[in-house]
C-alpha cells in the first residue's frame, strides 16, 4: 500500500485508530498537555502558540523559548506544549491535535503533515532544509567503559549484549541500525560485508525496547553491555546524573531533526522557527547536547559531554540520509516488511536462537 493511500485511510478511519488505541491499551503514552510560560511577560497582549514535538528536545525548546520571550517577536507568547513519541505526535496532528509549530525526530513525520495538507510543500526549502538540530549515532557504555569499547568492531565480539531501540516500532531507532550498516561502507567495506556485520550485530542484540528512552532505561538496569543511542540523548542522560559514558565512533551517521510551521499557524510561530535557527537559538540547543545546524555558533562548554571543552568531535567519516538517497529509498531498502534487509536479517537471526 502506498503511503498516500495509507494516509487517506488514516484520516477517514479515525474511529478505527481510536479503537486500535483501545485494543493496545496504554501504549500510546504521549504526555499530552502541560504548558510553559517562559519569561515574566508583563505585556497585556499574550499569544498562545501550540508546540507539538518528540520528547527529546523538550529541554532545548524550553531554553530557546525563554530567550525567544526576550525578543520583540516573542514578547507575551504563552506556550501550550505536547511531547511524546515522534510518530504518535505526527499522527495526532493529522487527527486534529492543535499545533502551530512541530518539532519531530524524522523528516517523514513532517512529510505526513505535508501530505495531509497541513504544512506547506516548501517547508524544507530553507538553508538547513527544514532541520533545526543535528546529532550523531554513538555507542553508550557503562561508566568507565569496563569492556574498553572503542568502535563498531567491538560490538560483534562473542557475548557482547547490545541494546538498541526497536526499529520497527520506533521510527527514530532506524538511525542506529543504519549507522551500524553504513559504518562498514564508510570504512571501505562492501554491501555484502555490511550485511554480514549487521547479521552479527543482530546476533548480539539482547533487547529492542520500544523507544530510545526505554532503551536507555533498560541499559541503566544492566540489561546490556552497550547501548546504541544518540549523542544528545547520552549527553542529556549524563547532565541528569546518569552513570554512563559514550564513544563517538570514527564512522557514524548524522541525525537530523526537522521542525516546521503549520499553514494556518499564528505568524509568531514562524518567528520562533527563525529564532531557533538563529545563532541565539542554536546556542541554546548546543548547550543541551545537539550539534548546531548553522555555522557561527559561539563555542560553549557542554556539561555532560565526554569532553565538555570539545563537546562535538568531528567523526572521520560521516554519512547522511541524503547520501543514501533519502528516507523513501532507505525505508524500502532496509525496513520494508517484505523487501527490507532488516526484517530479513531479524528473521534469520531470530529463528536461529
Amino acid at each position, binding site marked *: 500500500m502506498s503511503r498516500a493511500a495509507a494516509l487517506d485511510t488514516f484520516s477517514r478511519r479515525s474511529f478505527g485508530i481510536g479503537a486500535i488505541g483501545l485494543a*493496545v491499551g496504554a501504549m500510546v503514552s504521549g504526555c499530552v498537555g502541560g504548558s510553559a510560560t517562559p519569561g515574566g511577560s508583563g505585556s497585556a497582549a499574550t499569544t498562545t502558540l501550540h508546540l507539538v514535538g518528540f520528547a527529546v528536545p523538550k529541554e532545548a525548546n524550553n531554553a530557546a523559548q525563554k530567550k525567544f520571550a526576550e525578543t520583540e517577536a516573542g514578547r507575551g507568547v504563552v506556550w501550550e506544549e505536547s511531547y511524546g513519541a515522534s510518530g504518535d505526535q505526527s499522527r495526532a496532528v493529522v487527527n486534529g491535535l492543535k499545533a502551530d509549530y512541530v518539532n519531530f525526530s524524522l523528516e517523514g513525520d513532517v512529510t505526513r503533515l505535508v501530505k495531509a495538507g497541513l504544512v506547506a510543500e516548501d517547508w524544507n526549502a530553507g538553508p538547513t532544509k527544514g532541520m533545526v538540530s543535528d546529532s550523531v549515532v554513538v555507542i553508550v557504555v557503562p561508566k568507565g567503559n569496563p569492556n574498553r569499547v572503542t568502535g563498531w568492531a567491538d560490538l560483534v565480539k562473542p557475548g557482547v549484549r547490545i541494546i538498541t531501540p*526497536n526499529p520497527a516500532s520506533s521510527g527514530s531507532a532506524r538511525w542506529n541500525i543504519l549507522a551500524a550498516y553504513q559504518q562498514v561502507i564508510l570504512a571501505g567495506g562492501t554491501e555484502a560485508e555490511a550485511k554480514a556485520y549487521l547479521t552479527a550485530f543482530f546476533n548480539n542484540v539482547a533487547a529492542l525496547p520500544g523507544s530510545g528512552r526505554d532503551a536507555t532505561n533498560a541499559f541503566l538496569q544492566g540489561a546490556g553491555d552497550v547501548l546504541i543511542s544518540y549523542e544528545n540523548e547520552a549527553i542529556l542522560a549524563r547532565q541528569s546524573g546518569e552513570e554512563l559514558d559514550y564513544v563517538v565512533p570514527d564512522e557514524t551517521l548524522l541525525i537530523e531533526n526537522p521542525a516546521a510551521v503549520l499553514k494556518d499557524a499564528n505568524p509568531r510561530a514562524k518567528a520562533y522557527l527563525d529564532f531557533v535557527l538563529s545563532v541565539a537559538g542554536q546556542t541554546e540547543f548546543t548547550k543541551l547536547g545537539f550539534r548546531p545546524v548553522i555555522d557561527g555558533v559561539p563555542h560553549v562548554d557542554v556539561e555532560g559531554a565526554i569532553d565538555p571543552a570539545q563537546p562535538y568531535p568531528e567523526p572521520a567519516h560521516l554519512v547522511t540520509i541524503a547520501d543514501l538517497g533519502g528516507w523513501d529509498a532507505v525505508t524500502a531498502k532496509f525496513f520494508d516488511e517484505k523487501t527490507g534487509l532488516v526484517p530479513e536479517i531479524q528473521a534469520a537471526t531470530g529463528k536461529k536462537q
Partner: protein
Amino acid sequence: MNRWSGLGLGISLVWFSLLVLIPLTAVIVTSASGGWAAYWNALTSAQTASALGLTVGTALAVTALNIVVGTAIAWVLVRDDFWGKRALEVVIDIPFALPTIVAGLVLLSLYGPNSPLGLNWANTRVAVFLAFAFVTLPFVVRAVQPVLLELEPEAEEAAASLGAGRFTVWWRIVLPSLTPAITAGAALSFARGLSEYGSLVLLSGNLPYRTEVVSVRILSYIEGDKLIDAAAVASVLLVVALVVIVGLDLVSRRVARHA
C-alpha cells in the same frame, strides 16, 4: 418493562455502543477495507504469526495458572485466618493499580540482570510469562472471592455428614458454585494478557521470533503507516479472544451441570 427500566436499558445501550460497539465495528471495517489481502498479508508474515503464537500461548498458560492459583488465593483469603491477611487483601490489587510500565521496571529489577534472587529472565519468554502473570493475577481472585463468601457452609456440612469425602465435597458442592466466577475471572485474565504491552517494554526485549508480542507488532504496523495491517491483526486478536471466552463459558456450563 416499565418506563424506568426502559430508560435504563436505553442509557446502557447507548453508552455501550459509544464506548465499545462502534469502535470495535470500526476496527473490523478498517481491516475489511483491505479485503482478504490484508488478512493474508498480516497472517502470512512469519514474524506476526510467531508473535501471535507466543501471545496466545502465553495468555492461555497464564490463564490456566490463574485458575488454579487465583482460586487457591481466594480460598485462603475467605476461609482461613492468618496474620497479615488484611495486608494481603490490599496487596492483591496492586497489579491493577500500578502503571504497567512501573510493573515492568519492578519485574526487571527483581528478575533482570541485577536480580537480588540471582534469576536473570530479562529478554526471554519467561519474562513474557511473568509479566502476563503479574498483571492478570487479581482477576480470578477478585471474581471468586465474593462468591465464596456467599457460599453457605451448610451444604458442605450436609454433604460431609452424609459421608462425602473432602474431595467429593469440593468437586460436587463447592466447585460447581464457583465455576461461573472462575470462568469470568479467567476470561478477563486471558483478554488482559492478550493486550498487554506496557510491562513488556523494558522486560521482554521485543525480540522478533523470540519475545515479541502481538501488541508490539500492531504498534510496528502503525509506525510504518500500515493501518490496515494493524487493524487486521487487531481483529484476529478479537476473534481469538471471542473464541476463548465462548469456550470458557461452554466449559463452565458443563461443570455447573454436573452439580
